C-alpha cells in the first residue's frame, strides 16, 4: 500500500504543494491559486458586454462580479466553504484609487486551495452605469503578485502519532484510538473496523495497560504483542503525548518500530 510520506515525497518531486487536511486523514495536492487568479482576471478582460459573472471553485467557493467593457464594477457575492467569509466591497462601486488592492486580496482568497475555477456569465438583472470606471482588468493583471507569492496555507505537520505510524515502513493498517486525531485511520476497511471495535471496547484499559510499564504517563511507551517473526502479524499499541495508537505490525516492520522508539528515547 502506498504510504502518506511516499505520496508527499512524490508530490514534492513534481513541484506540487500538498498538505494534510484538518484531521490529517487525507493529503491534498493544492492547486495553483496564482494561476486561478490570472484565469479569473483573463475572463474579466474578455468580457465586453455587460455581464454578471459567477465564478465557482471546486472547493465550493463562489464569487459574483458585475463586469462591463473589461472592467469590474461590483462584487455582488462572495461565499467561502465552511466560513462565513464575506467582503466589505460587496455592493460598492469599485474604483482603482480605493479598492484595487482589496479587490486582489478578495479574489486571492476566493481562489485559495482551488484546483479548478469555472464561470457562468449571464445578463445582469439591472442595467449598469456605463459611465463608471470600475477596476480595469488590464491594471488588475499588472498588479497581481507573482503566482509563487500568493500565500499558500502552510503544510500542516502531522501529529506525533500519525508521524510515527506513517513513518514506519510496513505498517499500513492503523488507527488513532484516543487523543488528538482520534479516529484517524488508514488501511483495509475490514481491519480498521476490527481496530475500531478494539479501541471502542478497550480505550480505557489500554491506558492502564501501558501505565504498568512506565512511571510517567508523558513518556512514550509502546508494546508489540504477537509473533515477532516468520511473517506473522502482531499488534502495536503505543502512547505518545495524549495519543493512543493501534496498528497491525507485520514481522518485517518490527525492527523499524524499535528504531522509531529508540529515536524517541534518545
Amino acid at each position, binding site marked *: 500500500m502506498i504510504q502518506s510520506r511516499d505520496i508527499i515525497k512524490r508530490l514534492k518531486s513534481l513541484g506540487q504543494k500538498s498538505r494534510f487536511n484538518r484531521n490529517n486523514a487525507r493529503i491534498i495536492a493544492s492547486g495553483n491559486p496564482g494561476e486561478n487568479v490570472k484565469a479569473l482576471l483573463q475572463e474579466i478582460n474578455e468580457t465586453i458586454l455587460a455581464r454578471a459573472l459567477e465564478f465557482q471553485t471546486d472547493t465550493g467557493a463562489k464569487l459574483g462580479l458585475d463586469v462591463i467593457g473589461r472592467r469590474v464594477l461590483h462584487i455582488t457575492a462572495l461565499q467561502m466553504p465552511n466560513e462565513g467569509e464575506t467582503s466589505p466591497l460587496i455592493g460598492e462601486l469599485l474604483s482603482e484609487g480605493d479598492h484595487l488592492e482589496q479587490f486582489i486580496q478578495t479574489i486571492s482568497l476566493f481562489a485559495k486551495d482551488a484546483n479548478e475555477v469555472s464561470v457562468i456569465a449571464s445578463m445582469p438583472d439591472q442595467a449598469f452605469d456605463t459611465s463608471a470606471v470600475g477596476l480595469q482588468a488590464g491594471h488588475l493583471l499588472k498588479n497581481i503578485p507573482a503566482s509563487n507569492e500568493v500565500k499558500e496555507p502552510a503544510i500542516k505537520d502531522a501529529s506525533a502519532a500519525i508521524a510515527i505510524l506513517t513513518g514506519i515502513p510496513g505498517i499500513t493498517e492503523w488507527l488513532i484510538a484516543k487523543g488528538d486525531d482520534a479516529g484517524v485511520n488508514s488501511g483495509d476497511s475490514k481491519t480498521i473496523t476490527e481496530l475500531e*471495535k478494539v479501541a471502542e471496547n478497550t480505550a480505557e484499559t*489500554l491506558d492502564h*495497560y501501558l501505565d*504498568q510499564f512506565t512511571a510517567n504517563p508523558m513518556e512514550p511507551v509502546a*508494546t508489540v504483542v504477537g*509473533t515477532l517473526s516468520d511473517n506473522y502479524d502482531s499488534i502495536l*499499541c503505543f502512547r505518545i503525548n495524549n495519543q493512543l495508537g493501534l496498528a497491525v505490525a507485520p514481522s518485517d516492520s*518490527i525492527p523499524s518500530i524499535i528504531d522509531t522508539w529508540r529515536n524517541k*528515547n534518545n
Partner: protein
Amino acid sequence: MSISEHLDAINSAFDSVRIAAFADLSVQLVLAESTKADIGQELLDELCIQAANAFECPAVSAGTSLIPPPVEAIIMTDKGILLTLRTTEFSPNALIFECDYDIKLKDILTMARDTLRKAGEA
C-alpha cells in the same frame, strides 16, 4: 546444557542484553537468570510481572482475530526493551530479556526459541 548455561550463552552472545531470565509467568517467579551486572531480586520480580502483563494487552485479549494467539511481546520505554517469549499462549514458561535498543532482534529470537524448545524437552 542447563537453562542457566543457555541464559549465560545468550547473555554473552549479545552485548545489548543486560538481563536474561527464565521465569514461570503463572506464579510470576524468575527461576534462573544471567546478568551483566549485579541486580536485586526486586528488579527481577518487576521484570517478571511486566513480562506477564505484556501478554495481557487488551487489544489482543479483546478477542481480535487480527493476529494469531500471541507468544512473544516487546515493551519499549525510555529504559530500553523488555522482550519476552513463551512456547504457546498457555505455556507458563517464558524467557525474558532486558536489552538496549540496538539488540539484533532476529538473532536473539532464533537463539531464544531454541532455548525454550530445549527447556521444554528437558
